[in-house]
């Protein structure tokens, strides 16, 4: 054997595949050749790695997860052969039926009398879709209210409070200082911006039709059933959605912007645009990141929680700049009314110096009113325990969110293909490990939609309980790098 090691011979030797004579010959050579001994060590190392790799275990998807994906719409088609067989069966069954139907039709034509036709029509009408039971009415609840807003119900206009409910046929109006959120069902609701007038044209199970006369309505729609619909009409235009989050604005012109999901914008039967996240209509208005819309608060409840909800009235003390609801800052210029679940909850505020303060309140009365003095005392800085999480603990949790964060980035790349850079994501974690605030540094100068998306994803993170029993804040540096 020369000093260029014979790979196959060494592999065979390492795997004990050689005859006794060949083994002895190789061993004699190895004893004298350092090059081949080094090569043999590499072969043995690789063999050990293969063995270790074969013993490795991996996370595999569960059957439940796969089955859910199989049952998901558009992907759930049974194997083609099964479909073919089913179709074949139907055809096989239907030929005799068709023949029988044809025979009966011929017989009926032979005996038809003029009165029979109207009777048949009446019978047909009785089974037409129009005669199906009317979908049940849905009632909306006010989840958040700030400023002055009114509700026109049966022709009578009254100020909106948290006790107001919204029905089909009602009209909602918000003043220039007002914002409100209406919860329709779990995951479905809409928010009215300031100076908005919205008529509830239809509000039934599976059918929502909102007519926007002026201002802006932001909708969040949970995944709809196949036959359900959610439309927002604005003049001649209407926006049709499935599961999504989007807004429609009607001022000098009508505009539509999509946060999540897909929205069709149509005029009559003419489809004008199919919008995906980050896209708006008309396209020219949303061509620059600066034109991206501001964030709006969302208030989420499951309907059964609504019955246990309590009202909270927050009157702003002078030291307060904004109430922070679901990551959106609502200027603290008037009382904020919120419907919140019973029990302990965290409230977040921004003070005049831009510091974010979070306080715990226990909502146990039907109506909790926090007057300015009480609120000022609550939000006054108090020394408390400070929590600690190791960089490894933080990093492990943040890594789990990388894919959703990347999706946020990908969506925005469609609008701005050169979007890239480094920025810091500031996260505040409560003593329980929940994210109470996530925001990007102002230096990031990212499109507002990307900021919002990243912050929302970050808010879903759950950290281990910080050591020390207190909350903590930290920054997570992120890199955006496009391959284009």
């Amino acid at each position, binding site marked *: 054997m020369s000093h260029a090691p014979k*790979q*196959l011979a060494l*592999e065979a030797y390492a795997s004990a595949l050689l005859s006794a004579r060949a083994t002895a010959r190789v061993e004699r050579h*190895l*004893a004298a050749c350092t090059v081949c*001994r*080094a*090569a*043999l*060590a*590499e*072969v043995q*190392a*690789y063999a*050990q*790695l*293969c063995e*270790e*790799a*074969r013993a*490795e275990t*991996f*996370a*595999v*998807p569960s*059957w439940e*997860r*796969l*089955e859910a*994906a*199989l049952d998901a719409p558009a*992907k759930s*088609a*049974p*194997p*083609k*052969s*099964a479909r073919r*067989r*089913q179709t074949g069966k139907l055809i096989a069954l239907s030929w005799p039926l068709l023949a029988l139907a044809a025979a009966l039709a011929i017989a009926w034509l032979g005996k038809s009398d003029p009165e029979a036709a109207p009777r048949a029509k009446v019978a047909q009408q009785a089974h037409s879709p129009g005669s199906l039971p009317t979908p049940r009415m849905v009632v909306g609840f006010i989840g958040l209210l700030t400023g002055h807003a009114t509700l026109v119900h049966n022709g009578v206009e009254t100020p909106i409070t948290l006790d107001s409910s919204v029905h089909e046929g009602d009209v909602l109006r918000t003043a220039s200082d007002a914002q409100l959120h209406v919860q329709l069902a779990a995951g479905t609701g809409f928010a009215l911006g300031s100076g908005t007038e919205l008529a509830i044209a239809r509000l039934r199970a599976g059918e929502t039709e909102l007519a926007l006369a002026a201002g802006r309505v932001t909708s969040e729609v949970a995944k709809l059933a196949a036959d359900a619909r959610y439309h927002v009409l604005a003049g001649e235009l209407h926006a049709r959605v499935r599961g999504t989050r989007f807004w429609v604005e009607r001022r000098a012109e009508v505009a539509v912007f999509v946060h999540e999901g897909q929205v069709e914008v149509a005029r009559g039967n003419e489809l004008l645009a199919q919008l995906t996240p980050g896209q708006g209509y008309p396209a020219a208005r949303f061509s620059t990141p600066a034109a991206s819309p501001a964030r709006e608060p969302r208030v989420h409840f499951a309907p059964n929680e609504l019955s246990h909800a309590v009202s909270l009235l927050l009157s702003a003390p002078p030291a307060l700049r904004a109430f922070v609801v679901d990551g959106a800052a609502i200027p603290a210029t008037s009382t904020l009314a919120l419907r919140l679940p019973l029990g302990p909850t965290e409230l977040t505020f921004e003070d005049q110096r831009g510091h974010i303060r979070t306080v715990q309140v226990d909502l146990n009365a039907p109506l909790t009113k926090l007057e300015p003095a009480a609120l000022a005392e609550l939000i006054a800085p108090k020394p408390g325990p400070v929590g600690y999480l190791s960089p*490894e603990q933080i*990093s*492990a949790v*943040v*890594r789990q969110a*990388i894919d959703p*964060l*990347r999706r946020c*980035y*990908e969506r925005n*790349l469609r609008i701005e293909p050169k979007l890239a850079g*480094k920025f810091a994501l500031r996260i505040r974690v409560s003593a329980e490990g929940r994210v109470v605030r996530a925001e990007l540094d102002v230096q990031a100068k990212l499109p507002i939609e990307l900021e919002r998306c990243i912050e929302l994803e970050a808010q879903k993170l759950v950290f281990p309980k910080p050591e020390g029993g207190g909350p903590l804040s930290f920054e*997570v*540096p*992120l*890199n*955006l*790098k496009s*391959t*284009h």
Partner: protein
Amino acid sequence: VSSDAELVERARTGDRQAFRALFLTHRNATARLLSRLVPAPEVEDVVQEVFLQVHRSLDAFRGESRFSTWLYRLTMNVARMHLRRQRSRPKLTLAGQDEAGQLERPELETPEREAERNERMRALDRLLACLSEKKREALVLHDFQGVPADEIAKLLEVPVMTVRTRIFYGRRELYAALAQEPVLAALVQSLLSASEAPVQARRAAREQESAAPGKAASAESRALRGDKP
């Protein structure tokens, strides 16, 4: 217990339980194969993608090869498509961390030896990722999945000699690259030291013999030479 062929036949007619049985039987092997082809955090998702594809393509399985062979071929195709998509995807990473390394392979708190083994596996993956797609696929199927070369040839639709050549050169590149990864270089060194020990002992014994000719060799050197004491 039903065979794969029976299960496939039943699954084709829409029998969900038969498809479930196929999935449960093959998901671990599919994950093991994918683990050497796609980044670890993506394995679970790609396994799911493979079986969704299997469900859609059961008609295309003509029974000319074993179901596992057909499944491997489909897995390779899904992995290739996944990697191509990934290559054109934008990157969002935690700053200061290498996406191919730390980010995609979260360190787990494990006993020391397990941590070392995990480290070796990650290093191996990095080396495998440097091989050409053709060599990597042949090597992974043969050395890590235990698929015979003739079956790989059918699966990849290439002559069996091509498969053997790819395995040979793939291994050769890997052997040469082991030194690039400190953790693997350490493994090679430890194996080399272990093999050096008997050689050193023989050499010492020879020197001792030559220094004192005629004297009986020590028991140790006799044993090393295979002599009877």
